[in-house]
C-alpha cells in the first residue's frame, strides 16, 4: 500500500520536473520560462516529498522531508521574483542593465 502510494506520487512529481525542463527549453522568453519552472519546482518537489514520506521511518525523517519542501517553496518564490524583476526593462534597481 505504502509502495503504491510512493509510486503514484513520485511518478507524478517526476512528470512535473520533466514538463518543467521541456518548458524551459521550448518557451520563447524569460518570463514564460520562469512560469514553467516555478510550477515544476513547487508542485513537482511537493509530490515527490509526499511519495518519499510514505517510505519514512520515524518522526525526524518526516519532519525533515516536510522542512525541505517548505524551504524550497519559500526560496523558489523569492528567487523567481528576483530574477523576473531584474529582467524588467528600465529597472531602476539595475540601472542600465538592459544589455540583454
Amino acid at each position, binding site marked *: 500500500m505504502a509502495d503504491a502510494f510512493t509510486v503514484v506520487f513520485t511518478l507524478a512529481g*517526476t512528470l512535473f520536473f520533466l514538463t518543467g525542463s521541456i518548458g524551459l527549453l521550448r518557451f520563447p522568453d524569460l518570463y514564460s520560462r520562469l512560469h514553467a519552472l516555478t510550477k515544476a519546482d513547487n508542485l*513537482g*518537489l511537493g509530490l515527490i516529498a509526499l*511519495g518519499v514520506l510514505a517510505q*519514512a521511518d520515524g518522526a525526524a525523517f518526516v519532519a525533515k522531508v516536510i522542512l525541505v519542501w517548505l524551504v524550497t517553496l519559500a526560496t523558489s518564490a523569492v*528567487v*523567481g521574483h528576483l530574477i523576473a524583476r531584474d529582467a524588467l526593462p528600465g529597472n531602476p534597481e539595475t540601472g542600465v*542593465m538592459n544589455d540583454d
Partner: protein
Amino acid sequence: MAVYLSVIALVLLGTLALGLVRVGRGPTPGDRMASVLLGGTTGVALLLILSASEGSGATLDTALVLAVLAPVLTVAFIAARRRPSLGESDRG
C-alpha cells in the same frame, strides 16, 4: 522498490541534463540563472528519492543543505548585477 526509485532518480538526472541545455544557450543571464534554479530543485528531489531508497538520514541532510544553499547563488547573482563593481563577469 529500490529498482523503481533508481529509475526515477535516473529520469530526474535526465531532466537536469535537459535544463543544462538552457544554461548553455542563454540567451540572457536571467535565463541561465533560471535554469540553474530548476537544477537546484531537481537536485533536492533527486536526493529525497535516494534517501527514501537507502533509508539514509545523511542523504536527507544533504538534501536539506542543498535546499538552503541553492537560493544563495541566485541572490549573489542579482546582487552582483545591481552593483556591477562586484564583478565583471555578470555582463555576459
